[in-house]
C-alpha cells in the first residue's frame, strides 16, 4: 500500500495547517530520504519497533527483533526499526546500527508521526499492522514479550511472545491477543526536549 496517497487523499478535506502537515513525509531513512511507503510490494504485515540508541532495554531486544525479521521475511512481514527520540540523528543511529549489527531497515521518526500512529510511549514498543487492499489496519501495539514486568523485574527469558503472536495473528487474519501489561522501557523523549 502507499501511505502517501492516503495522506493526500485525506488532506483535501482538512484545514490549511493540516494540509501543510500532511505533505510532510511520514519518516526518513538514514540517508535523509523521505519514506512514505512502509509496506513493500507483497508485504502482508508491517511491524514497527520503537527504539532508542541509549535505552538498555531497547538495545537488549535487538537480537530478538533481528531474528524475528529473518524468521518472518519470507512470509511477507516488513519490519522497521523506528527511532523517535530527537537526539537520535542519522549519524548517531548509523553508528549504533553498525555497533549492534542491525540489518533491519531503520526509520528516523523526526516528527514523531509514527509515535502517534502506533500510540507508542516507550522504547522498546512494537506495533503490528495488517495490509489489506493497500490499507494498514492496526492489529497490535504494546510490548514485544513479557521478559520485563517493571524496571528491575525481569524474567530470565520470556514466557509469552506477544509480538510474534500478533504477527501470526495478522498473517492468519485473526485477532491478536491483548498484552497483559504495558511495555517496560525508556520514555520516548518529546520533540523539543533534546
Amino acid at each position, binding site marked *: 500500500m502507499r501511505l502517501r496517497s492516503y495522506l493526500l487523499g*485525506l488532506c483535501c478535506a482538512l484545514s490549511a495547517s493540516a494540509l501543510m502537515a500532511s505533505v510532510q513525509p511520514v519518516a526518513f531513512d538514514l540517508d535523509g530520504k523521505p519514506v512514505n511507503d512502509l509496506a513493500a510490494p507483497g508485504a502482508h504485515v508491517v511491524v514497527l519497533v520503537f527504539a532508542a540508541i541509549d535505552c*538498555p532495554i531497547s538495545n537488549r531486544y535487538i537480537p530478538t527483533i533481528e531474528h524475528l525479521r529473518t524468521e518472518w521475511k519470507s512470509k511477507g512481514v516488513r519490519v522497521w526499526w523506528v527511532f523517535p527520540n530527537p537526539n537520535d540523528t542519522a549519524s548517531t543511529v548509523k553508528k549504533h546500527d553498525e555497533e549492534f549489527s542491525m540489518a533491519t531497515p531503520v526509520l528516523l521518526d523526526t516528527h514523531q508521526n509514527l509515535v502517534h500512529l502506533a500510540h507508542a510511549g516507550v522504547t522498546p514498543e512494537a506495533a503490528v499492522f495488517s495490509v489489506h487492499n493497500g490499507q494498514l*489496519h492496526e492489529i497490535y501495539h504494546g510490548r514485544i514479550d513479557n521478559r520485563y514486568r517493571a*524496571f*528491575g*523485574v525481569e*524474567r530470565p527469558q520470556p514466557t509469552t511472545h506477544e509480538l510474534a503472536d500478533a504477527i501470526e495473528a495478522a498473517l492468519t487474519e*485473526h485477532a491478536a491477543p491483548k498484552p497483559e501489561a504495558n511495555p517496560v522501557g525508556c520514555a*520516548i523523549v518529546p520533540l523539543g526536549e533534546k
Partner: protein
Amino acid sequence: MSAGSDQPMIRSLLSLLLFAVIPTAALAKPPKNTTATETKNLTWSHDIAPILYGHCTTCHHPGGAGPFSLLTYADAKRRASQIVEVTQSHFMPPWLPEPGYGDFADNRRLSNGDVAKLKQWFQAGMPQGDLSEAPTAPAYDAKWQLGKPDLVLKQGEPFTLPAGGTDVFRNFVFPYPLKTSHYIRAMEIRPGAPQVVHHANILIDRMESFREQHPDEWRAGVPGMEILLDSGNTFDPDSHFLFWKPDTPAIIEPQGMPWRLDPGNDLILNTHLKPSGKSETIDSEIGLYFTDIPPDKQPMLLQLDADDKLDIPAGDNHFVVEDSLRLPVDVEVLGIYPHAHYLGKDMQGWAILPDGRKEWLIWIRDWDIDRQSVYRYKQPLELPRGTVLHMKYLYDNSASNPRNPHDPPIRVREGNRSEDEMAHMWLQVLLVHTKPGDPDPRLQLEEAWMRDRLTRTPNDRVSLYNLGAALAGQGKYKEAAAIYEQDSKLHPNDARVLTAFGAALDGEGNWQQARALLQQAASATEASRAQHCDAAFDLADLDARRSQANAEQEFREELASCPDDAEGHASLGSLLLAGGQTQEAESELQRSLAINANNLDAQLALADAQLSAGDATHAMRLLQTAIQAHPSSADAHTQLARAYGISGDLNNAETELNRAAVLKPDDASIHSALSQVMAQNGNLDGAITEQQQALKLFAQDADGWNNLGVLEARKGDSASARKDFERALAIQPDHAQARANLAHLAAQ
C-alpha cells in the same frame, strides 16, 4: 476477532496523526497544574544537580556503567520522566536493604525527601535555575581512580559476550605473577565493557585449584555461577569481601586490614554478564595497590546457610528456610552479603544477644540477584560470645514470580547453576578481645561453624575436612584424627584426607600410622598434583623430624615431581644444612626463594647459615625482608636479634627480642635470651625479671637457674643467688658452673 472489526483502520489513525503534529508525546509531558508553593524554589542548579551528582552520576556519566549520562541539565531534563518513575519505585539508585534494619555505609537509597524533590521539579516543568548555584560536575575521566596501580593483572584471553540470550555467569583466572608476597590495600577492576558487567566477585585461589580443574578452558574463562576452590591444608580462611559493582570500581580496605597475595596464587573474577544487544568483548584488568604495612587485624568470612533444606515444590510461593549459629567468641561484624538465586524473595538476618536483645543484621523484602551487593556497616556491630546469629529466607517458586527461570515452575533444589537455588548469608567478622599468644581465635569460630554444619549434614566432606583442620590448628590432634578417620571411611582413597589424617596422627605422636597413611596418600593414583606434593612433602618432613636417613631422598623424589614447591626446597636445604652440606644447602634455599621470595623457612635457614659463617650483614638484610612479609614470626625477630648481637648492636638486639617475646610470650628461650642482652646493656633488674619469667615457663632449666644466680649475685643479693645455684645443682648435679659459682659465693 478478524482484522478490521474493532481495530481502527489506518485512515482514522492518520487523522489523529495530522492533528497531532503540534502537541506531541503527551505521555511523557509533565503536568503543569502543580501549585506554586510546592515547587517554586526547586531548580536543577540548586536542588536536582546535588542529588544526581551524589547518587547517580558515578554510573551515569559518559563511558560509565549507566546507559546514559546525567551530568548536565539537558541530560536530566531529557530523562526527567524516567528519573521520576525509577526513583518513586526505588528501582534506582539500586539498593535492596530495608531502611532501619542495619545501618550501612554508602547507603545508596534515596531519601523520601529527595524522591519528592525530583517529582516536584519534574511537575514544575524542570526549571534550570541559576547555573552559578549548581555544584561543579564530578570528573570521571581518570583511567584508574586511585592512580597508577602497583601491578595490573590482565585476563588470559578476551571473551566475547553474545549480543542476546540469557545472562552469562563466567569465571576468569588472573594468575599473580610476582615471586614475592604483597599486601593489598586496594583493588580496582576495569571490566572492559562496564555496561554489561553487572557485578563481580573476586576469589583468591591459593592452590591453583581452579586452573587444575579446567586446564584447557581457564584462559578464556569458565562458565558457572558458583565455584568451589580448594583452600589447601593450611588454615587460611577467606577474610575479605572482594565484591565489585559498577559504582564502586575501587575496593579500598580499612586501615590495618590489607589482604595478602602469595606467589602461585590466582585471582578468580566471578562475573555476572548481561547481554546488551550487541556482542561485547570482555577483556578485564585488575589493578592492585600494595602496602608494606602488614595487617594488624585478621577478619574472617563466616557463613550461615540452609542449602540442605532447599527442596522447593513447584508452585510453592512461600517456602521458608532458616539457619542459626551460636558464636563461641566475641566478634565485630563488619559487613554482610546475602545470597540466593532467582526464587529468593524475602531475606532476614538478625542476632539474638546473650541478654536477649535482638539486633537486625539486614532485611531485604524483594530480593533481586541482579542488584545483589555486599553491605558494610557504618559502625562495626559488636556481638559478644554466646550471641546466636539467625537467617530466614523465603522463596517463591510460583509462576507469579517473574524471575522464576522455569516455565512452568519445577521442583528446585540447591545447586551451583543459576536455575538451582542457594540460601547463604555471609558475614565478615573481626575477632576481638583476643590476647597475643592465644591460639588463633578464628580456629574456634571455624570449629563452631563446621560442627553446626555437621549437625545438619553429618557426612558433608567440606565440613568434615575443615573441622579436622580447625581442631588440628588448635593442637587438638586426637579429635582431629577422629574426624579425619570418619572422613577417610566415607572417602577411602582421598589423598587430601589421608594426608590430613596422617598429619593429625603425627601431631598426636602416632608417627607409625601417620607414616603409613602419608605413604598411601603419596602413591594414591587419583590424587591431583597438589595433593601428591602435599603428601610426599609431609612424608619426607616426618622422616626428617625423626632424623631418618631416607628423608633426604624423599625430599629429592618429592622435588623431582613437584619442582616448584618452595617449601620442599626449603626443607631439603635445612636438612642439608644440618648435615653440614652448606654449599648444596644454600643452593636449595636460594632455589626456594627464587620460587617464593617470602618463604619463611628458607629465609630463616639461609640467615642461620650466613650467621654461622659470620656474615651478619647479609643475614640482617634477609631477616629484615622476612619480617616485612612475616611480621608475626617470633623466630624471625629472634634471629634478627642474634644478627644484631653478632654485629655488636645490643640495643637493636634487645628491641627485637622484646618483639619476639610479645609474639611468643610462652617461649622461655626468648625471655632467657632477652635477659642476657639486658644484662649486657646494664639493665640488671630487667634481666632478672626476664630470667625469672623464663624459669616460670621452664623450671627445669639448670642453666637458667645458674644464670639467674649470676645476675642476682651481681645485684648483691647473695642469698637469692645461692638458692638459684643450689636449684641448678638439684636439677643437674654435675653442673660445673653452678658448683663453681656456689663455691665462689661461699668464699666471699
